[in-house]
């Protein structure tokens, strides 16, 4: 069974089709890199896969069920454009909140473990509004990973990350793949993404222009997919 299956999905904003008959799948343990120019539909597709918005037509299944099923949501980790943590709460309070929402057995201990793992244990009681950008991003990574999701949906996860946050994220992603989790990530940073990816999908104006395994040729020349299947 595919961990993520997208079948014939259309998504309209008004009359504009942001996604046009998208068919994609990612097997369990795979890392699918969604690439494409700005406005190609990567974020729209990831948000639809995460269940944040309904599609016009088509079916999306995660682990064989709808992404809106509570049991399925327990298995999804999402990093979007925002860090999705509260500025008015401390780092520990934020992670404890999400650990509670995901029904983890020991929310406070889980929060502390993830603060240590992301190098934020020294500022655990500091309010997020006082954090630097890099610290906020590491906290966002901890928030997305703390419930050990089977499927990770990451929208531009490397964008604007500092070196330390990139190292933390890459290490977590490699560990996740080693543990058999599925990753779908959209990115413009082809080199970082293709080093991790087992599959690549290129979106061009809401359509899948290419979907296939990530080859050593692509890793060596990240622009190759665009030249062969994209718009140059």
């Amino acid at each position: 069974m595919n961990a993520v299956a997208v079948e014939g999905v259309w998504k309209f904003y008004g009359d504009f089709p942001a996604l046009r008959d998208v068919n994609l799948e990612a097997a369990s343990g795979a890392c699918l890199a969604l690439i494409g120019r700005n406005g190609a539909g990567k974020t729209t597709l990831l948000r639809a896969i995460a269940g944040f918005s309904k599609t016009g037509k088509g079916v999306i299944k995660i682990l064989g069920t709808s992404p809106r099923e509570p049991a399925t949501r327990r298995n999804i980790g999402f990093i979007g454009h925002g860090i999705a943590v509260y500025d008015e709460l401390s780092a520990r309070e934020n992670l404890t909140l999400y650990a509670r929402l995901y029904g983890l057995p020991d929310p406070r201990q889980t929060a502390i473990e993830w603060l240590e793992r992301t190098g934020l244990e020294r500022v655990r009681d500091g309010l997020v509004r006082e954090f630097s950008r890099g610290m906020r991003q590491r906290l966002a990574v901890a928030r997305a990973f703390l419930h050990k999701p089977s499927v990770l949906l990451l929208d531009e996860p490397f964008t604007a990350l500092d070196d330390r946050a990139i190292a933390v994220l890459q290490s977590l992603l490699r560990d996740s793949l080693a543990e058999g989790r599925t990753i779908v990530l959209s990115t413009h940073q082809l080199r970082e993404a293709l080093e991790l990816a087992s599959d690549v999908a290129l979106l061009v104006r809401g359509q899948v222009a290419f979907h296939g395994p990530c080859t050593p040729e692509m890793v060596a020349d990240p622009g190759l997919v665009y030249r062969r299947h994209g718009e140059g």
Partner: protein
Amino acid sequence: MSFARLVLVVMAKDLRAELRTKEALNASLAFAVVILVLLSFVIESDDVPQKALGNLLWLVFAFAGTLVLNRSFAREVPNDCLDALVAAPISGAALFLGKALASFLLVLAMELVALPVFGIFYNVRWAQQFWPLMLVTVLGTWGVTVIGTVFSALTVNIRLREVMLPMLTYPMLLPALLGAMELTGDLVTGTPIGPDTVTWLKLLVGFDVLFTAASVTLIEFILVG
């Protein structure tokens, strides 16, 4: 985790975030007190039937309450926190009720401070029917909160949401406000709830039950589409 605990987790998060900044609470409280004080200079309480002062009180509660309710879902906009809440395995109903309860407590706190101010500046012995007045205040405030919270969710992605929220909520609130005004007008003059006014109380209870049920049912659709 049980439904009730999830409601409490969301409520505690909203209360904690608000009490750290006190943005909405301070604005709401200041607005209520300033309006009550200013209007007391314009309205001679001897010339106005005391029963009518209940109307004034609820208009102030509704306007000041909107300042709290505006923040209910708007609090989730910075950093895209709403995405994380929608992604979490909690029902829309638990999310809605947690947020509504947090706003309810904040609006109620504002009202409990505004009531003595109202009594002093309008020369009203408002505590004569204290517990019935508290019952009406709680029922009226829950009605205001439920409608305000659901429209806060509906307008969360609109740029002019601070303007849109009152425009959408006040017409919907009319039945609840009418009931609360009628009952409060009597109670602040020392008249207990009797057979002729109990209908307003039933209306208030019915409004709360109906709109709570409708909001809990519709919130998932409002948030995800």
